[in-house]
């Protein structure tokens, strides 16, 4: 009875877990919230909101200084990680290679004195932001904690319905977003 029962148990628990993951957001009516890309800055940063345009200029290293004068440090995930490409695509509307070429170009032009910093995980992203006053980065909206400040983009927070930085394809049931 043992082996058959084991499989049955595993199956039951797996289904239960999946159901929990799939239906939990639905249960509290925040289904889309997990799909947003939260833009985070140092908590001491006076900026609360950016337009998507301003955000893009920052990530494209066109804007390099915060209004209060501090240099802006853009923080991305590491090269090769899907979250990097996804974020570049969402924020800058570029593929990752295009973005890299843009950065290289800007660097050679000498118009930038610092390249974006690369961080290998979401938690490191948060900690980096926490430690760096001029930094700006991103994490998945459900990964945000209070060590960082989440910026409004176009006046919207990641949980809002019209929040711009979310994946084009809506996340269906059972699918895991790949940021």
């Amino acid at each position: 009875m043992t082996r058959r029962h084991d499989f049955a148990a595993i199956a039951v628990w797996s289904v239960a877990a999946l159901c929990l993951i799939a239906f939990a957001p639905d249960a509290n009516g925040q289904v889309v919230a997990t799909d947003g890309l939260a833009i985070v800055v140092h908590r001491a940063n006076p900026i609360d909101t950016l337009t998507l345009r301003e955000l893009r200029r920052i990530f494209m290293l066109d804007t390099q200084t915060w209004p209060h004068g501090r240099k802006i440090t853009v923080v991305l995930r590491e090269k090769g990680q899907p979250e990097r490409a996804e974020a570049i695509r969402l924020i800058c509307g570029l593929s990752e290679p295009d973005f890299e070429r843009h950065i290289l170009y800007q660097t050679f032009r000498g118009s930038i004195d610092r390249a974006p910093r690369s961080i290998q995980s979401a938690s490191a992203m948060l900690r980096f932001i926490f430690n760096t006053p001029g930094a700006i980065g991103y994490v998945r909206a459900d990964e945000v904690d209070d060590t960082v400040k989440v910026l409004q983009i176009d006046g919207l927070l990641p949980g809002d319905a019209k929040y711009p930085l979310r994946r084009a394809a809506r996340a269906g049931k059972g699918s895991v977003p790949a940021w």
Partner: protein
Amino acid sequence: MVRAGSARPHLRYPAIAVLAAVTVTVLALGWIVATDLRRSADDTRQLYDRFAKGDALIDSVLIETEEVRRILLYALHTLDANRQLEYAEQSRAAEAKVQRLLESQSALLANPRTRSGLQTVIEAWKQYVVVRDEVIGLILEGSLKEGVALDQQDGEQRFAAVRRAIGELKASFEADAAKQVAEQRERADRDLTRLSLMVVATLLATAIGIYLFHRREALEGVLRIEAHKGSILQAVPNPIISTDADGLVIELNDAAERTFQLPRAVALGRRIDEMIVPARDREALARAFFGRGQPSAAAVRIETIGERRDGTQFPMEVAGATHLAGRDLIWTLHVADLTDRRQAEEHLRRAKEAAEAATRVKGDFLATMSHELRTPLTSVVGIADLLDAKMLAAPERELVRRLRSSATTLLSLVNDVLDYSRIEAGLMALTPVPFSLRTVIEQALDPVTELAARKGLDLRYVIEPDVPRVVADQDRIRQILINLLSNAVKFTDTGEVAVRVGARTDGERVTVTIGVHDTGVGIPAHLQHKLFQRFSQIDAADRQLGGAGLGLAISERISRLLGGSITVDSRDGHGSTFTFTFTAPIAPPAPLDSPAGALRGPDVTTPEQPPFAAQSLTILLVEDNEANRRVVLLMLAELGLTADEAASGLEAVERARHRRYDLILMDVQMPDIDGLEATRRIRAGEGDLKAIILALTANVMESDEARCRAAGMNGYLSKPIRLNTLEAALTSLASPRS
């Protein structure tokens, strides 16, 4: 009697209490010492612990701050943001640790002296952390140059300030620690000193306690002895008074209070001489004892009169002895009430007087008896002598002889009894006169000559040439010799009786030895010791020989009075030798003495008629008893003499006044005036002064003789008068007159 042991038990309880107290104290002290030492050790350990922790804290703060900066420097050496983040976070973690250390453990360093130092460190650290955060920010932002620059400018500077602050804190902390350790050590030292003092104090207290205890014990012993002595003093029945050198009373016993009716309260502190003697004797008492500075070696003893408070007086003896109490001279006066002693002395004196009176009475009785017995005997014997001298027919002659013999025996008995009584009463006195032993020997031989002749015995004597005249009582010596000789003749039937006289001169004295030897029956050895006991004769059968058995006893006692002895040497059936010795002073030789050493043969014939028969003597016989007068007259007639008669003293005086007498025979005891008074009157001139007056007396005491001589008499004849005695007296008187 107080036994030392019986007094111990009540002392044992305090001893146990003291022991318990000491034990408890020692335990308590031990506990205190242990606790204090432990607390002190704990304090020290905690102090060191705290210092070690504080030191370690400071060190770890220092290390962690170093770590913070070191990690930060690592971050500067990489371009990788992830690595930089790691270092930044590590640096932050180290910083947080420093912060935690500084905040959480600050209590360790929280004392007034180190608080400011700690605050400085915290402040400096905060300053540095600001810079450090900025540097981290710059690094993570990728601005390494700015980061390095900032770090090298502000960072290093502020970090140096932190290190300086920590160094100062450490120095301050260590100084404080050193100070506290010193204080602790000081406190420990103080504690130790205090404990030592407590221990010493306890030991001291114990020692003092033991000392006090022993002292109390000793004191109690002394008090017990004192009480004992006090009770002895109080128990003494005689008054004992203790005074100082001036006679102020210090102490007196119950007997003194009683005897002088002197309450202690009154007596103490007052002069003793003002209280116990009458006013007239105070000076003497005070002079005898008081006012001298030095103790006297011997007890002072005076007899005086004691006076009680009620004024009654009694004889007393006060004996005082001194001793020094410290430097004070103390008199101890011992009072003896002499009332009893005086009474005893009085009793003794009266008893003595009574005894003397009794003795006098006894002597008087003896004298009276002597007189009363001899007076009739004088007549009997005298008449018998006279009858014997008459030419009577044979039957009558025989009767007269028996009468004479019996009377003589009776007279001898009376004499013996009187002699013996006199000796026993101690009344026999000796009258030493110079005399020749030859005379005495010859006189002693006379009475036995007749009997010896009748028994056919040889009777002889030998006197050694060197025997001198002596001064002794010749009457007594003669008496002894007569006794020995009559015994010898009495107990010897055949053979001889011989007297041998020898002498040993020793300076002015001579020891005369007179041996009387016979060849008689002898005396058995076992009976010899009885010889000198009174009333004893060897053989009851010898009673027929007469005598009361007093002879040898009397002789022996007289010989002792003469300073000599009588011994006997005899064998049964082989005769006896009695040896009589006496010592006496040597008398000067008399010219009339016949040459010594002449050997006379037995003289059994009657002595020749004395020459004075042819002479014409005028004699007055004074005698109140007519019978006695008659006897004496007859005796004088036998001697061819006549005499005038006087029947009383007055008559004698009267006759003596009218006629001159050559010889007056004066009876002593007479009714009107006695012979002594009569003699005194005659000598006083009422009669012939030249007459020889002889007393006729039965009182043959020596005192009588002295009285006779004192009255003026020339001698005396002892009653009863015997013919040969009278003749001898007349013979001796006649020669100087002729």
